[in-house]
């Protein structure tokens, strides 16, 4: 991998994002295998909307979840059929809904009754019936379920406590077909117990909805919440063990006559692509200031906000960071603050990172950069050019590399 990164840095420049398609494909296949095809796989485009990746994902997964008209355009450009898309988001604007309905989007995931009314009107105006999924906001979510979005006041979904009234209203709306339920209430969870408990909660709530509202849904979407080990000291959860515990939960759900033929979908984002991406940056200058070694790099928070600790974290923690092409007997390590080129002290990729001795021109790699990287960063701040995005693939034993950048200095 190191030599691939060096070649890419040489050919395409730095900083850059490098995505290893083989790893993404392997992850998709692992999910399919371990759940014995009982789940269809839907990828949350917001994790990484790169059209080159979306195109390549078509061979490996079943559906995409989009959260804007822009993401829908990416998906269509990548060759996805609109019927394979679901559209979530708490603030879908009328023009986005019109665009989605006229495109023939698969499912609109309604997050409120007023939104459903709007979809109903638009579908009527278009002379069509629109399939919808109802997003449910569970009352209870297991402790440790990552960034916890449930049980609290929320802009997402219809609160479990309000479902009776909501379904009564939804059933009266013309031009809509309620085709299923959708739950997404947590992300970035590494705790297998919490993940299993979440499946159980989803199944119970789905079952209650079927019972109370006499709606036999063809589609049940489970937001997986599967996390990846960003930080040194974190461990990935064991997917095989997790699946072994989830199968009996699914068995119970699907033995209900009304749910026997339900299509279960697993919605996941960073779990598919996060670990397959590396952010590569070059050391421009090394400075020692008041006893601290500072390596100033050509990549920073404008390219990778999450690594700098500003994307939803309160306490900065270093990503897994390495020196590219470090010699094997690198006993000669030192502690560095890794910073970007911006004129702000919050542009810090790493605090007190232990690395082999660095020189100007050395390459640094940050793991777990395949999701919520470039497009989740303030790329226009201070007007530097955006990093390139490069995909590495293997075919017939040979490695190929392609520039799939879609962000230019003007737009993304």
């Amino acid at each position, binding site marked *: 991998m190191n030599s691939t990164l060096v070649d890419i840095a040489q050919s395409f420049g730095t900083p850059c994002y490098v995505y290893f398609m083989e790893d993404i494909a392997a992850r998709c296949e692992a999910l399919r295998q371990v759940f014995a095809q009982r789940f269809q796989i839907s990828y949350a485009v917001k994790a990484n909307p790169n059209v080159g990746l979306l195109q390549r994902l078509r061979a490996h997964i079943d559906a995409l979840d989009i959260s804007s008209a822009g993401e829908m355009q990416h998906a269509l450009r990548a060759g996805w059929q609109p019927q394979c898309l679901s559209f979530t988001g708490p603030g879908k604007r009328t023009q986005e809904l019109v665009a989605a309905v006229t495109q023939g989007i698969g499912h609109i995931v309604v997050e409120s009754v007023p939104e459903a009314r709007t979809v109903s009107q638009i579908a009527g105006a278009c002379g069509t019936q629109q399939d919808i999924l109802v997003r449910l906001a569970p009352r209870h979510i297991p*402790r*440790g379920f*990552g960034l*916890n979005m449930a049980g609290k006041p929320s802009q997402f979904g219809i609160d479990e406590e309000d479902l009776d009234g909501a379904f009564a209203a939804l059933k009266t709306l013309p031009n809509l077909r309620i085709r299923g339920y959708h739950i997404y209430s947590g992300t970035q969870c*590494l*705790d297998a117990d919490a993940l299993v408990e979440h499946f159980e909660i989803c199944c119970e709530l789905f079952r209650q909805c079927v019972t109370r509202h006499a709606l036999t849904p063809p589609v049940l979407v489970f937001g997986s919440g599967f996390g990846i080990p960003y930080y040194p*000291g974190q461990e990935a959860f064991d997917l095989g063990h997790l699946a072994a515990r989830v199968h009996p939960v699914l068995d119970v759900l699907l033995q209900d006559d009304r749910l026997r033929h339900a299509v279960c979908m697993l919605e996941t984002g960073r779990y598919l692509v996060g670990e397959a991406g590396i952010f590569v940056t070059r050391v421009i200058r090394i400075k020692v200031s008041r006893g601290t070694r500072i390596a100033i790099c050509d990549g920073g928070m404008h390219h990778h906000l999450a690594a700098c600790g500003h994307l*939803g974290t*309160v*306490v900065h923690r270093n990503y897994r960071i390495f020196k590219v092409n470090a010699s094997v007997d690198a006993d000669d390590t030192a502690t560095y603050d890794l910073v970007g080129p911006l004129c702000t002290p919050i542009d810090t990729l790493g605090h007190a990172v232990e690395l082999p001795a660095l020189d100007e021109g050395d390459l640094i790699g940050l793991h777990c950069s395949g999701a919520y990287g470039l497009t989740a960063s303030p790329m226009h701040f201070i007007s530097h050019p955006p990093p390139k995005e490069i995909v590495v693939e293997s075919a017939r034993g040979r490695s190929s590399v392609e520039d799939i950048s879609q962000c230019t200095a003007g737009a993304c």
Partner: protein
Amino acid sequence: MMVLDREKLRRYLHEKQGLAPEDFEDDTLLFSSGLIDSFSMVDLIMFIEDTGGVRVHPADVTLDNFDSIERILAFVEARCA
């Protein structure tokens, strides 16, 4: 005078963050172990400010200062000195 002591902090972590008393010691890493997430951290900082009578600046919010009971108490003590 505001005082943030070990007892108050333990009680807060139990009552407000739902941590079972047997699950954490003074040196248990609260945040980096996943016992407390980002949202909870914000609430914890507010509690420390209100009870300890200290102002927590964004640059202070590091694992060194906040990742365990003993570190929090040391931080507050240094601030009050």
